């Protein structure tokens, strides 16, 4: 068998076997680029931000609240609603005690900037749940999820490499990618695979790297053993280097607002977006002000001050900054998570992720279509194909429907429900289960094409009604958000409408196609 043939075979099968898992990972992972925005929508208690409040006022308000609640904190953190973050919040760290555990406990409150009081937000995992799904899955132990998602990523890496080998003349093929007169799933599959190829390669390899300490344990274990030695290198790589530790001598820290103006001067035109104090109230307190970088993979260095005197302080350099391997790892992490990206680039990341999802979906559909052609010639083995057809539908459309259900649950579940966050998460999987069962239940009654139309129409409605849901269950609504320039809230509702439109267009196009074999219970319908 020629090399090219074996690579073609490998490409098909490595993509197919874990195609649904990869589809899941691409869809949920892509939502992660907007996890904070999603969280904001899912906590409608957070009031509209008044743009007239200055940064110093924010800092003073936050410090007043911290004085009330964070009296013995070992570290405090004030997050200002600038740049990407729509949140005004405070964090404080409680020291390790028998109750809080060996690493202590972090507390968090979102504050109302007008009153200085904490906003009581509903219990929710927000957008971070969707994002974590893509590598940690759900309901299964962490190590197993990391192994499965890494295996899927490895299959994809092999598919990319074999795909490039098959498409050696990548540019030529790309520019004449319409293989026949008819547009086909293969064309779309090629489009979704080739266009964002740099993204796919980067996201796959960096994704594997981010889980490597869980998946490639034998390697560090060979040098450090398992147990203490291994934990040592893990801590060295991942723990922040403490340049000054607490002395236990109490001295009041300088109020940070007084240093704010100085920090602004030193920031080269960047805005200050966070204020962190390590060891507040201690002789060795350090005040750190984060500079919101305009953009860039090399993030701006934060500005440090001595907490007692207010003098500028240069912390010792983290030894890992001189480590090329660690720097490369950090760069890959930043690239994977798009942490450096401004809105335009972040939307492009999201689009590329969706194209990745589209690539997996069209791949699965393409496989089913080709199989169907073969079987209608030979007439054998339709049962397995029928299974794949139904699972394709339930996964490709079922997952987006399930994600919409997660948003619906956020608004419909009672605020004081016990384990509310868990039930929101369960809702996603319950509805996904229903979407998977639907084609099985209605298999004998109607054609595959109609089943697709049913789910497409359902998806259209469930997304289109989300802005209505928003207006009905909160004091925010699209009109108000647009008028006040609340782009996070408006952006969410608008995106839901755009998604609804996409499903509607798909339903419309599907309806107009003439099915090849249109009988009720044949595994037919969606034409090539």
């Amino acid at each position, binding site marked *: 068998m020629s090399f090219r043939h074996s690579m073609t075979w490998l490409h098909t099968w490595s993509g197919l076997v874990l195609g649904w898992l990869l589809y899941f990972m691409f869809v949920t992972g892509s939502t992660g680029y907007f996890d904070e925005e999603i969280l904001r929508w899912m906590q409608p208690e957070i009031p509209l931000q008044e743009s007239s409040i200055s940064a110093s006022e924010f800092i003073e308000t936050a410090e007043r609240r911290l004085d009330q609640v964070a009296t013995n904190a070992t570290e405090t953190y004030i997050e200002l609603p600038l740049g990407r973050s729509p949140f005004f919040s405070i964090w404080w760290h409680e020291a390790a005690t028998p109750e809080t555990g060996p690493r202590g406990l972090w507390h968090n409150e979102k504050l109302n900037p007008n009153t200085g009081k904490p906003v009581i937000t509903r219990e929710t995992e927000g957008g971070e749940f969707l994002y974590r799904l893509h590598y940690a899955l759900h309901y299964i132990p962490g190590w197993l999820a990391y192994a499965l998602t890494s295996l899927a990523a490895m299959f994809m890496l092999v598919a990319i490499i074999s795909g490039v080998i098959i498409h050696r003349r990548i*540019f*030529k093929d*790309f*520019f*004449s*990618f*319409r293989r026949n007169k008819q*547009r086909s799933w293969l*064309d779309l599959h090629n*489009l979704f695979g*080739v*266009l*964002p190829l*740099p*993204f796919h390669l980067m996201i796959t390899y960096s994704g594997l790297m981010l889980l490597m300490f869980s998946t490639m344990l034998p390697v560090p274990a060979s040098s450090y053993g398992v147990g203490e030695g291994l934990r040592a290198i893990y801590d060295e790589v991942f723990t922040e280097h403490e340049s000054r530790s607490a002395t236990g001598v109490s001295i009041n820290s300088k109020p940070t607002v007084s240093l704010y103006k100085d920090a602004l001067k030193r920031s080269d035109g960047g805005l200050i977006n966070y204020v962190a104090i390590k060891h507040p109230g201690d002789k060795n307190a350090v005040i750190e002000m984060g500079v919101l970088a305009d*953009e*860039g*993979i*090399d993030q701006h260095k934060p500005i440090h001050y001595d907490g007692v005197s207010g003098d500028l302080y240069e912390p010792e350099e983290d030894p890992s900054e001189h480590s090329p391997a660690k720097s490369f790892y950090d*760069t890959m992490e930043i*690239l994977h998570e798009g942490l*450096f990206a401004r809105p335009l*680039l972040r939307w*492009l990341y999201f689009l*590329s992720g969706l194209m990745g999802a589209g690539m997996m979906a069209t791949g699965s559909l393409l496989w089913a279509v080709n199989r169907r052609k073969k079987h209608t010639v030979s007439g054998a083995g339709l049962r397995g194909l029928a299974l794949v057809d139904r699972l394709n539908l339930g996964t490709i459309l079922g997952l987006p429907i399930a994600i919409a259900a997660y948003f619906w649950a956020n608004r419909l579940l009672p605020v004081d429900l016990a384990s509310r966050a868990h039930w929101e998460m369960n809702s996603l999987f319950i509805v996904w289960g229903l979407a998977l069962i639907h084609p099985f239940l209605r298999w004998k009654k109607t054609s595959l094409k109609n089943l697709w139309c049913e789910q497409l129409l359902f998806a259209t409605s469930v997304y289109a009604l989300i802005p209505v849901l928003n207006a009905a269950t909160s004091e925010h609504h699209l009109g108000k958000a647009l008028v006040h320039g609340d782009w996070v809230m408006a952006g969410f509702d608008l995106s839901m409408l755009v998604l609804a439109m996409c499903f509607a267009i798909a339903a419309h196009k599907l309806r107009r196609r003439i099915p090849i074999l249109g009988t009720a219970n044949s595994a037919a319908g969606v034409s090539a």
Partner: protein
Amino acid sequence: MMISSFSLCLLGLCLLSLATKRNRKNALPNFIKLSLLQTRALKYFGFACLIATALVLAGAKGLSLGLVYLAAWVTLAALTQALLLSYQPRGVPLLLGASLTAAVISLALKV
């Protein structure tokens, strides 16, 4: 330099796509048969535009960020080409003219 780099990228991909015989057949009203030299010239100019895009981006945003933007721009421009070639192939020469104009103007204005 966002507009100028994107226009250059778009221009480059238009030139590259027109270098293929099949695309020319669909895109141009009268199928113009080009000599080998002319086809090669189209390809070289196309790639030159892409290289120019890379240089403009690297100059504006630094090397690492420039590369990221290059990948993003090529993806977007290639998507535009693919859609045009599928649904409205006659649009490609128009896009070529538009992107050429846009590139010249935006480079002059340093936008």
